[in-house]
């Protein structure tokens, strides 16, 4: 009797605990099933903690023959704090589902999952990565927009023409994780602070150590780490064992 009451209490507590973070699953009546789930747009966006992403995520369900499937149920899920509007939907006439996403309060990378079921009931999953910038990375993003982006971003906009093509040695775009992830924070700090000439690298990189403060350079590096693709994995602190 007491055992049963305890189990009931525990399950009540667990469900109460869960309902705080997870969105209630929506039951959908799918009229069709697909064989593949593909991302059309909206992945790898750089947003801010707690804020909606600029672009919605659009996924498409395809059948075995590669054509779009209408009426298949697609469910979205993600870490605590991520909000999807809607969290589940049936594919429209072009086989697509569009959802608006608001990221959680933790800065960093979010792995979101879209899923649907195939004819045999097996789950097909698609992973979509997004980045949320916290305070420090936001400072870095703003400094990047003021000082760095003109040379380090190959894209031009009407307001901002890229200078990258004019440079004899091409700078690394900050998203270029393959190269930048191999460099330690200390190396990046040194290059930003002292410039290329002092470190036998391209002299086109000026020294910023007399213009930017130490905390600003740290913020820039946190931004570079946040947007790296493939993602940057910090070595973390290593302590001596007991």
């Amino acid at each position, binding site marked *: 009797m007491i055992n049963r009451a305890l189990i009931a209490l525990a399950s009540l507590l667990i469900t109460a605990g869960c309902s705080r973070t997870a969105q209630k699953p929506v039951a959908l009546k799918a009229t069709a099933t697909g064989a593949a789930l593909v991302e059309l747009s909206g992945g790898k966006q750089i947003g801010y903690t707690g804020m909606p992403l600029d672009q919605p995520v659009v996924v498409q369900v395809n059948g075995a023959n590669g054509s779009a499937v209408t009426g298949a149920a697609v469910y979205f899920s993600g870490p605590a704090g991520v909000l999807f509007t809607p969290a589940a939907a049936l594919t429209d006439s072009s086989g697509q589902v569009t959802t608006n996403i608001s990221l959680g309060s933790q800065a960093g990378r979010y792995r979101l999952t879209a899923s649907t079921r195939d004819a045999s009931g097996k789950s097909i999953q698609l992973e979509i990565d997004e980045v949320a910038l916290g305070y420090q990375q*936001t400072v870095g993003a703003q400094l990047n927009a003021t000082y760095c982006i003109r040379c380090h971003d190959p894209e031009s906009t009407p307001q901002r023409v890229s200078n990258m093509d004019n440079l004899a040695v091409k700078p690394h775009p900050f998203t270029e994780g393959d190269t930048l992830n191999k460099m330690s924070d200390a190396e990046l700090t040194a290059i930003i602070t002292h410039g290329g000439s002092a470190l036998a690298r391209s002299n086109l990189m000026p020294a910023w150590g007399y213009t930017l403060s130490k905390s600003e350079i740290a913020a820039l590096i946190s931004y570079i780490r946040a947007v790296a693709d493939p993602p940057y994995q910090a070595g973390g602190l290593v302590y001596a064992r007991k």
Partner: protein
Amino acid sequence: MKNTFLQFWRFFFGDSGRAFGSASLVLLVLLAIAPAKNYFNQWHRYQKQYLHLIRGRADAVTLERHFEPGIQQIWLPDQQVTDRCTTCHLGLKEPSLVDVSNVAFRKHPVIPHSLTDFGCTTCHRGQGAATTVEEAHNATEQWEQPILPAKYIEAGCGQCHLEKLTGTPFLNEGREIIARYGCTHCHAIKRPDGTSIQPDDDPPSLLHIADKTSRDWVFAWIKDPQSYASTATMPNYHLSDDDARDISAFIVAQSTPMQPPLALLKPDASPDIAAGTSLYGQSFCASCHAMQNAAGMMVGGNVGPELTGIGTKAKPEWLQDWVSNPDHYDPNTMMPRYRFDAKQIGLLVGFLESKTEPDFVANVHLDPATLQQIEHGQRLVMENGCASCHEINGIKKPENFAPELSRIGSKPLNQLAFAADVKHTLHDYIGAKVGNPRAFGPSLKMPQFKLTPTQIDEVTTALLAQTDRAFTQPPTMRIASVQQTKYKPAGSAGKIMHEVRCFSCHTINGYGGDMAPDLTYEGTAVQREWLVQFLKNPETLRPALIRRMPKFNFTDAEINTLTDYMLTVYQTSDFDRDSIPTSDLTLAMADQGKQLFYSKFGCQGCHIADFATDKGYIGPALAGTGKRFNAAWVYHWLKDPQALRPGTIEPKQHMTDEEARNLTAFLMSLKSTGAKGAAK
């Protein structure tokens, strides 16, 4: 019944031994209540969980040493902070706990403030003194201060930071939207430093509106401003056809003719649109005005109104008058008075008149207005507070037309009337009011602004920063907003500078716009001959910019006046502009400077010294430095650019005096004429 009681009594208190035993037992239980309550407390559970978590980690010893059991408190009496949050949030200061998935124990993200100096609730809100999760984070009946969602967290910063802070783009944008959409024409928003948010949308005066446009256009505009210009900031009042008819009748009826009246239009039988288009381009009208191009893309700035349908809106006589002298219609406009000749005015008017949106007024058919309609229109204009923004004959600007929002971020919920479907939180209330005000009742006066969901969040963030705490905390915590000075240049040069509206784009002595460089020290920087040529025919200094200095068609006398004034008045007191004569700069120095330019400092990455070889596209081209600048300015600029122009992105290089001198020698030896190079 009595028997049972007696039995019970005897069992426990039958003899002295039993009585003593029972009393002791009761006392023991009573004494145990307090420690038991403590033991079963929620925060105690969190501390046990935390210990469990850290004991499994590599750095357990360090973490355990930092752990202090019991209720923790940050107490800052002068900031009204009594925060016990750290009782459960135990890992906030532990760098190694950055990867913990449980938000309660995770390290706080990097911010420039120390937790012990500022507390938690200062930024996050919530009930600092509470010791249960529910009471600390959510609003209760006694305490109405729920935790601020992460989305609006920059509102916390905005309580002290009244300036534009680098790390708070949403708060900054929210404040800018409030100014740009003129919210403060109706709602006063005072700030803790004694200033208030000033509108910068400059709504046009309607005193002579009938000279400018037709009643049909006024009707269609007030029905739906965005259908005329998608960038319009005027909100939609959701007026019925009858109300719009009556308001347009009154607006046109109250209008008086301009003094002196508009000149007759010099008709141009076949306007040369192509020549007008190129004059529009050469005059850099697009620096301020946007226009939709053939592909439907909006091209141009947002300082002035969008001109896509200007031909439908403005009468040709008015355009002719406006282009030749904007002051005549609106003395407070930001639009410069270009010195156009009659032919140029004709070309521009022809071009602008060709930019029509006939569909906008196609379905407007208004009968002549009756006296009754005009009177009804006047009443509507007064009820809707049109005069809060616009100057209107016979109607005074209403005082306090809408509630003051200085402390809206601390408004108690029981003072708010919520619309259906709006969650009972302050941020949801503000968001709904900004985004869809008429949902609160069709009779409410607040109009519908055209804002995206992100813009609504930004405005909400800026409003949530207007809290009681912001006003009551120690003034030393405040970082004041940067206010424009009241600087005004004097004399005949001042008059010319006012006419061409230098201050719409340039800042001098803390007053003016931010579109173009600060000219406070321009007199120290440049050579007279260069400035004369530049004013005559502005060359492109920065190849990558779309917004450029227009050609104002000055007379030689005007240029002389302006140049004399600028060279005399706009000087720095830090050094003399003639302190480094070019004769001191030798060829050998220039050679060394060239080495420094191309190798050590890599200046060619951003600047062009030689149009044949360099491609740098960020800073100004330097090929004509020797003709443009004074050597002393170049030298001091190289030593410390930010000292001469705060905020410039040119990095300070910490050069030695010799390096700076050699580089100056090299740059001063560059005397190519810029215009030829810029054309490349």
